[in-house]
């Protein structure tokens, strides 16, 4: 009974937030296409035109990493404030607090799917051939989504208690970006450091997407199941915190 009601609420709120976001600008949802194109163009200009590092391989290699990273980073940043933005709401009516990060993750998922379609088109234009390994893409996307969901819910759960966490995340995300191998190949890491490199789930996922999309090979399923496991742990911890403090969040000052 309640579950269905919350499902309806989550889906409608996702739709409403997306529509409201589109209505705020002149060319509305065209931004969801233009924004990632501009983002990718910046890196194309820097690496291909200015640094002349642009072999075809490097550009496609870079784009895959950037698209995945952007999905992760913007999901976290949006989920971070999801509860405090709705403080007016949760002080007036009872709502389970897990709704809010789930809604922002879904809005970011919709935007990611559009960006991912553009990425696939660009890869085809560059000359990447689709292969049989591409059937793994839905599994990889699901796994990535689960990891994003875990991190987002955790970020949303603890930010109201430590508003300072917001400032930490910015540097944290930048550090993680450079550790996730967006600009370099995992092969360039010395063998004895690879364990640490692949302890970072984002590094695993970006590598797996590249292997699948660009080399048409199957990803390392052991590493993928490690990400799957970590994501479940994160999500379980986050949902527990959200549930435990469900009736404490409305009393937070949200500095």
């Amino acid at each position, binding site marked *: 009974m309640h579950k*269905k*009601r919350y499902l*309806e*609420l989550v889906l*409608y*709120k996702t739709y*409403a*937030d997306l*529509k*409201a976001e589109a*209505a*705020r600008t002149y060319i509305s949802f065209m931004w969801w296409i233009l924004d990632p194109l501009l983002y990718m163009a910046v890196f194309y200009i820097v690496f291909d035109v200015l640094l002349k590092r642009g072999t075809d391989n490097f550009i496609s290699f870079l784009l895959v990493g950037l698209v995945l990273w952007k999905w992760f980073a913007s999901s976290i940043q949006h989920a971070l404030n999801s509860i405090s933005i709705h403080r007016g*709401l*949760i*002080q*007036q*009516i*009872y*709502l389970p607090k897990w709704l809010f990060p789930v809604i922002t993750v879904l809005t970011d998922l919709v935007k990611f799917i559009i960006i991912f379609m553009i990425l696939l088109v660009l890869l085809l234009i560059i000359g990447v051939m689709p292969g049989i390994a591409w059937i793994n893409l839905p599994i990889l996307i699901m796994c990535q989504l689960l990891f994003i969901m875990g991190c987002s819910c955790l970020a949303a759960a603890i930010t109201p208690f430590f508003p300072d966490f917001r400032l930490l995340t910015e540097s944290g995300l930048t550090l993680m970006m450079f550790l996730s191998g967006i600009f370099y190949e995992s092969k360039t890491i010395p063998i004895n450091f690879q364990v640490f490199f692949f302890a970072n789930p984002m590094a695993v996922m970006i590598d797996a997407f590249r292997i699948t999309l660009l080399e048409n090979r199957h990803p390392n399923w052991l590493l993928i199941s490690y990400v799957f496991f970590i994501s479940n742990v994160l999500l379980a911890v986050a949902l527990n915190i959200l549930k435990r403090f469900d*009736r*404490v969040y*409305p*009393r937070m000052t949200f500095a």
Partner: protein
Amino acid sequence: MNSHLQQKSSFQPPLKVRSLRKVGVCFQRRSGLFRSSPFWGLHDVSFDLFKGEVLGIIGRNGAGKTTLLRLLADIIKPDHGELYNNGSQATLLSLQVGFIPYLSGRENVMMSGLLLGLRRNLIQERMADIIAFAQLENFIDQPIYSYSAGMRARLGFSIAIQLDPDIF
């Protein structure tokens, strides 16, 4: 309801919907980096609320009226004492809750209704009534940032009266 009870002739005690025993709510006021001092917004509040009763709460600013209502509506939990809740729904008078300015009146009815606990089918069913009651037939597909304050208030009110809470 009352006449119905009297017809049964046998005495039935009125249904207790909320019961508070020495309830207190404590807020932490931060006074330094690691220091905070407790502030009891509500302290030792006890009363029973029965079905059919009307409860009025009067108090100065900061006396804890809103905090008490939030306790009754199950939005927050007490830090001290016991609060019995028979499971009945309580709603604060929340008009225009969850309104998004860029969405149309119709979409905001759906959004607000879902947040307040109505089901999608039900809202769809009553959409025409809600719009008619708010007298907004000509503007319902316009974004509500273009509404006047009065129009928004009418829309919020016609959604709120669709609710059927046990306590309000």
